[in-house]
């Protein structure tokens, strides 16, 4: 069964959320979902950029103004 992991990066600034996301995704298996919570707008750009380049499915949501969830589905 695929897992869903939430990574709390609220209050963290670049490049910490990106490095934490990279490390967290390494530990997951294909099909798992990683949700990174951020409130740093640069991370909203560089995390999806990295994840798309690495070939994963990415979606960004803004559940609250000024806070985002980057949702990554590990594809390989």
């Amino acid at each position: 069964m695929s897992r869903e992991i939430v990574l709390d990066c609220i209050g963290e600034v670049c490049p910490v959320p990106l490095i934490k996301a990279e490390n967290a995704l390494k530990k997951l298996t294909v099909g798992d979902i990683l949700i990174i919570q951020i409130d740093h707008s640069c991370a909203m750009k560089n995390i999806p950029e990295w994840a798309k380049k690495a070939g994963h499915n990415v979606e960004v949501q803004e559940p609250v103004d000024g806070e985002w969830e980057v949702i990554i589905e590990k594809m390989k």
Partner: protein
Amino acid sequence: MDIKKNKYYQAWFKNAWTYVTGAILLSLLQTVTMITTNDPWGVTGAFANWGAWIYKALGGSVEKWTYFDSQGAQAALSAGFLNDPASMRNLGIIAGALFAVLMASQFKLKKIKSHKQVIAAMLGGLLMGYGATIAFGCNIGALYSGIASLSLSGWVFALFLFCGSVVGSKLLVKFFM
């Protein structure tokens, strides 16, 4: 109609502008800066002046300091805060950033996550401030304006900025992750 769904509101205020849009605007505005103030765009030089004014207000004197030796530096110091284009511009950057974040309704007082974050921020700020001051410029004054003025110094600065970033990133991963 809900303004948040208006496509012009989204394009102008909500969504981040592209890097290309930003680059073109920066180029145009730095040309305006050059024409109106006769100086290329810079940021950190003004902070050194702020320090000098505060030190003077507390009764100190910076007249003998090598950094403020030049006529230009002395003239800027005696003209004062309100007549310093770089200081006004820095305030403008802060006001503009506040305006942008308010328009996107993304203003937020961020919580401090850990003691490590405080130490990293203070250490990083000190290193950047000290580095920019002894290099006579930061990534704006020395790098961006240097290269834009067709000066070789900008490229030399870029090379060492890159080396510093590599070392800084390694230290960050090692001690703060």
